[in-house]
């Protein structure tokens, strides 16, 4: 098992249903800066024409996760399917993981004195097969699935659509697959020109190799 998520970010309307569903599902600490999941917004204007791009995001559950490597107490760890978790009882709040994370996906939960982050709703997987954020989304931006299962909706989708990653250069092998939009203009406007576009056939061996390297840690929980 190798859990991942595809994001058809062009569907996002910034309604923030995902943020609220996440908080309710996982009991995330209240506070505007306490988010396991968020919608990134870039806006500006080109020749007087305003534009807004939305990038819904959360923890990438990187296969080669620097937050796990850097943790001195093994509080940050993997569980089955390569989900990156924090064991709050081991966390000493050194915040090394927060520094190491290229995606700023972690924050301090002041109610438990530990770092908190997205868990891919691992407690829901058996029953629902989806995360709370995917289930609640009005325009269905997200699709959660298992990269190792050729028959799951996620892999079927990734075989059909091209995709890119955020901050691929950090080489953490992230698992949020941003789907390339069909519309050329929107693609040009919302994806940096240095961003690499990938296909399933080309990325699959790279991800398998990365998984082989670190998946022995995945059981430790």
């Amino acid at each position, binding site marked *: 098992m190798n859990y991942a998520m595809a994001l058809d970010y062009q569907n996002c309307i910034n309604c923030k*249903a995902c943020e609220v569903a996440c908080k309710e599902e996982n009991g995330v600490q*209240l*506070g*505007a800066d306490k988010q396991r999941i968020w919608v990134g917004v870039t806006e500006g*204007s080109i020749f007087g024409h305003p534009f807004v791009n939305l990038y819904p995001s959360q923890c990438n559950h990187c296969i080669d996760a620097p937050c796990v490597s850097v943790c001195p107490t093994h509080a940050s760890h993997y569980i089955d399917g390569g989900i990156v978790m924090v064991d709050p009882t081991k966390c000493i709040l050194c915040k090394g993981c927060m520094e190491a994370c290229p995606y700023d996906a972690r924050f301090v939960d002041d109610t438990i004195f530990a770092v908190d982050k997205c868990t891919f709703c691992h407690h829901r997987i058996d029953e629902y097969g989806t995360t*709370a954020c995917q289930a609640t989304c009005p*325009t269905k931006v997200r699709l959660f699935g298992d990269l190792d299962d050729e028959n799951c909706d996620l892999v079927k989708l990734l075989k059909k659509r091209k995709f890119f990653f955020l901050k691929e250069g950090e080489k953490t092998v992230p698992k949020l697959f941003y789907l390339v939009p*069909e519309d050329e203009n*929107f693609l040009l406007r919302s994806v940096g020109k240095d961003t690499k576009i990938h296909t399933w056939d080309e990325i699959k061996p790279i991800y398998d190799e990365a998984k082989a390297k670190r998946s022995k840690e995945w059981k430790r929980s």
Partner: protein
Amino acid sequence: MKVEISRRRFLQGSVALSVVGGTALGTSNILADTKTSEDNKIRPTKKTPTLCEMCVNKCALIAQVRNGVIKKLDPNPLFPKSKNMLCARGDAGIHALYDPDRLKYPLIRAGKRGDGKYRRASWDEAFEYIKEKMVKILDEEKDNRSCIGYCTGEGMAEPTYKEFMAEKFGSSNFINHASICLQTAISGYALTIGGYGMADLDNAKYIIMAGANRAEAILTPDTMDLFKRTRGRGAKLVVVDPRFTNTAIHADTYVPIKVGTDLAFVLALTYVVIKNRLYNREFVEKNFDNFNVYKLHILQQNYTPQWAEKITGVPAATIEKIAYDFMANAPESVYYQGRRSTWAATDFQLRRAQAIFSALGGGIDIKGGIVFGRKLPLDKEEINSPIYANAQERIEKNAAAIIGSSGSWIAWRNMVAQGNAPYPVRGLFVYKQNPMLSVPNTKKTKEMFEKLDLVVVIDTMPSDTAMMADVILPECTYLEREDPIKSFGGVEPAIVLRQKVINPMYETKPVLEIMKGLAKVLNDPLWKNTLKHDEDVQDDTKDMKPDELEKYRKENGFDLEDMYGANQEEMNKKSFVGKYGEEAWKELRSKGVFYPHMKEYFKQIDKNTFEYYPENKKSYSIDKLGEEADPDAYIHDTCINPKEISELRKFFKTPSKKIECYLGNLKKKGIDAMPTWREESYVKIPKGKFKFITGRHAQFTQDATQNNIMLLELMKENYAWINDKEAEKRGIKFGDEIEVTSKIGSVRIKAYPTPKIIPQTLFYIHGFGAKSTGLTFAHRNGASDNEIIEDRIEPVFGSAIMHDTIVDVRKV
């Protein structure tokens, strides 16, 4: 939802914690994840399907209950209208239920009106208080039932309240949200194409969305259908708006337009289409009434794109292109109807012009256009309504050309406040509405409340309006009650049920129980009052013996307690099983949703997609349904009163299925029979000033969710949008406090300079600026729009004009 442990308690336990580690955390329920599995072992999660009421959409949801506490609300994928989703507000419904500021028991005013001083009372005491005042008022007003007004916001329990007040109690002074919301849009379409219908955004190829904002004012299924098809995936989207909204970011073409000039824009589109004969000639020939008159009118008035450019600021070439593209895609093209309307005095004409323009392409009652769909019937219990000879007509009936049964809030309020009603209105019942924040000109609303002898507010929260009440009756939230069963029409019709998830908390009651309680205490005293003052009843009952009199009273509906069944569940069952049977009833209760052949039709396509009806079973066209067509099918949501629409249509004798270009009856009332641009009714913006506009967004519903802590972290307060260049000239930077002043009032609010709004326009979101000290989290967040919006009405329905107020902006 996790109950947060307080810091102090945590510190007390922290010594033990470092020793026992994980165990301590697990057992003290700090971690939601740990808690989930722990709780599951002890007591399984109970799942109840029900319906959301955080806004008007009524999305289907499944509530998870553990140990009597609602832990999570999940979308219920079975409902074709809500399509497996819950928005931020729907998810945050738990915090409406567990809001610490909720009204918990009846309250009776102990201080001056508006000062917020109340004492706790029992239900009996509260009912008794209301009874005494009402009996006195109705005796003094000689049984004129209309001296007690009543208003309500939209909701599934609205009929329970409204029908009692109208049909049994017998007052004609009813006001709901229509005249401060979508009256002109609904009626404009109803009188022109026979119904408001719904835009088939799942199939339309070309959509003009002007002023409507489906990304931020979420409407099901439109929002979900549309944004999966934009950006080159089948639906071309043109957004026309003074603001670059979240809807506009998805548009193929964004057209900034000057506030209040949409009518000129549509007339110019129509001109291009007529002049160049781009319209669907066959459809027009078959379905239009008076097309030639309209054609001549448009051409003679010379509504050219060049003419419209000067008024709207939209380049003539853009208008021309949109007209051509619209017709090239017709009939699968829609000029989106829009909902919260009345932007300017000409709004009714704007909606008519939109409807006619859409129809010119033939996109009415057809897949990909505006569709009317089908509705699954339910049985309805007849109410035995008494006739009170002394009950007078509504006070503001002459305030506009047609004052419908839902009234004109502004006209009504002003008459009561200024004391110039034809007879005194002395009491007001308010249910699920907050006129202190929702009706333009808050000062006058306050004056109105101060004039009244009895104000009763039924609500869940101590709103600004509740603070004006003599008696506050606490209603339970939507998660604590069963509501009247509801059939939603459309392309994919279904029947849905709001079931009780947990028992009402505190001493709250569902509105059904509240109305029953009122009926009980008012029944005999008011009957005596009728016998005393009502000459018709006196004539009828002269020389009757007591048992004959009692029989007369029952037969003629004067028994106020006879309209409700034993309980809501039974009443729902009664209206359902006659048509669909016991088996289906069980299915509806266990699934929350029912439609014939659901088991067979409902299919999961993938994790995100479901099919509700096979394509050949969808109801795109009522024309094709023939006999099956049901007049109610035109009405698809709870914001629209079917009775009112059918009355309107009867009044105008709209020939069935004809597009009405010319409304002769309106002309008699001094209203243009055809959409016409009137330069004199357009409010110009003086140099250096701004036109104020208001609107909605996806995290709050009007002012009903303002105290919800979960939503407040998404947006703590509202900001005033101001064009960045104009802000720079005035030295206004992001977050600066500005003072916005109109003729009627002034507010202070933080500024948001942005290129996303056109110059000379100021915008902030409705629903903030509550002054009630009972609202801990909402108290004085941002500013209320209705403190500055002038109270003017449009001439057709008396609806509030929302976007014609000129304001001054000053940096504080």
